[in-house]
């Protein structure tokens, strides 16, 4: 890193530079706390609390044998991880965009690098949750028939599918967060307000149409006939749409003080 000679204009052609995108991804790890360390601490804390609650219930009923076998199978604790990652994605996007431009990155390099990092996060956390599920199943639900990492719908799903579903769920939440964050980066708090008002209007409109035309039959039918892997495929599509939307929004964003 001691090169001091000025490069000639000839090598300044705007060729793609993958290492700059990689470095944009690395920007998110310069301070690993928010996206790489804190989530594990939060998941561990949620799991520990859940486990303690199980023990309290077991003590109160006088032993595991007095509980129905599915008592601890319905648990949404692990889903906080998804919500947390959504928020982490919003933060990461909002905070590093202006810094990345300050370090002479293009928006494109920054966004592609960041998207790559987000996919990496989904793989890491999806795999982490799946490993939790593996241990959970091997220990007969942590010794108490509990389900935390593969609860509810996932309880009897093959572990390979659990893996795919976790990764896709992380992708969906992280890229949703990224897309919402780009609205903020582009238009500030006004943009976010307009977005959520618009979203609320859409939801209410959908509910109205649902009530008026009684769509419960086809909707329930769709859910009943769609397999988890088909859901996963739709999840990937949704995440991809969010990802493209985020890029289109960020392409014309400017760093504001």
């Amino acid at each position: 890193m001691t090169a001091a000679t000025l490069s000639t204009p000839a090598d300044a052609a705007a060729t793609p530079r993958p290492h700059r995108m990689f470095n944009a991804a690395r920007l998110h790890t310069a301070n690993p706390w928010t996206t790489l360390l804190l989530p594990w601490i939060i998941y561990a804390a949620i799991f520990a609390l859940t486990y303690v609650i199980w023990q309290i219930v077991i003590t109160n009923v006088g032993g595991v044998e007095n509980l129905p076998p599915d008592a601890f199978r319905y648990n949404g604790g692990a889903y906080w991880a998804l919500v947390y990652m959504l928020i982490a994605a919003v933060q990461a996007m909002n905070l590093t965009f202006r810094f990345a431009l300050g370090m002479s990155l293009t928006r494109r390099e920054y966004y592609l690098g960041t998207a790559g990092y987000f996919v990496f996060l989904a793989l890491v956390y999806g795999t982490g949750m799946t490993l939790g599920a593996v241990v959970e199943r091997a220990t007969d639900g942590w010794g108490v028939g509990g389900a935390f990492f593969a609860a509810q719908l996932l309880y009897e799903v093959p572990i390979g599918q659990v893996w795919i579903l976790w990764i896709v769920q992380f992708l969906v939440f992280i890229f949703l967060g990224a897309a919402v964050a780009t609205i903020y980066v582009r238009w500030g708090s006004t943009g976010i307000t307009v977005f959520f008002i618009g979203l609320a209007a859409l939801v209410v409109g959908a509910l109205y149409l649902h009530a008026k035309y009684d769509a419960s039959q086809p909707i329930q039918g769709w859910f009943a006939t769609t397999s988890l892997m088909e859901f996963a495929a739709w999840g990937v599509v949704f995440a991809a749409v969010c990802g493209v939307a985020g890029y289109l929004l960020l392409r014309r964003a400017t760093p504001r003080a």
Partner: protein
Amino acid sequence: MTTIIETTGLTKRYRGVTAVNDVSVALSGPGIHGLLGRNGAGKTTLMQLISGQEFATSGEVRVFGESPVENAGVLRRTCFIKESQVYPDGFKGKHVLKTGPWFFEHWNEELAQQLVADFRVPVNRVIKKMSRGQRSALGAVIGIASRAELTLLDEPYAGLDAVARRLFYDHLLADYTEHPRTILLSTHLIDEAAALLERVLVIDAGAIVIDEDADTLRGTATTLAGRATDVDAFASGREVLDRSRLGGLATVTVTGLTDADLAAAAAAGLELSPVSLQQLIVRRTGAPIEIEEAS
């Protein structure tokens, strides 16, 4: 000489405000140049346009012959340090310095470490908790150590004390001498930076009002000092920018003196001295340029 920055009719309008108005300038080859102007004159916006961070409303900006907007080939040779730079939450000085070599290919780590020591940047402190001067110092370290072929420094020493500012000028000049490059420096502190500047661009209300070599600009006016009667006699009928009197002694700053005029003034027993750039710019822009208090 290679043209580093070239703008033609460059204009940026925000709702109701024209921040940069029809700016056409060209900077070529290595040099340290000043972009001077009052608060809100458009210095930062112009630099953001040059670094591709803002989109022009009309007109054109070319850096190294190409549009800088979304142009990695241009941006990787450019470093833009601004006072209002936002850093990610929880980032410490050392995190920022760690990323320097990732993005600036001429980054010199040894120099960065030396600057950190000289400016006393608290690298282990969270940036949010740094003082304005410490944040400026961190920016100055990156700006100098990046050794980018085009370095834009927007108010690089806001909040720095006099000692740190002196260090900044010394380091900038020393490193520039060893590694010539194009540096555009915006500042309120005209006289302090004057000795460094080759070319002076003065921006006022978004428009470039002065674009001249610093030496030429200085040569357009001279300060004469001597006995009040002699001074008054010489100055009568000439364009006087500034006048002051102390007892029987007086000084005037006059423009448009020829060599013969200068010789005549010297013969009349008047003492000649070059005029301060700041005084000149204040006069030429017709409004006082705000002088930032050293804190």
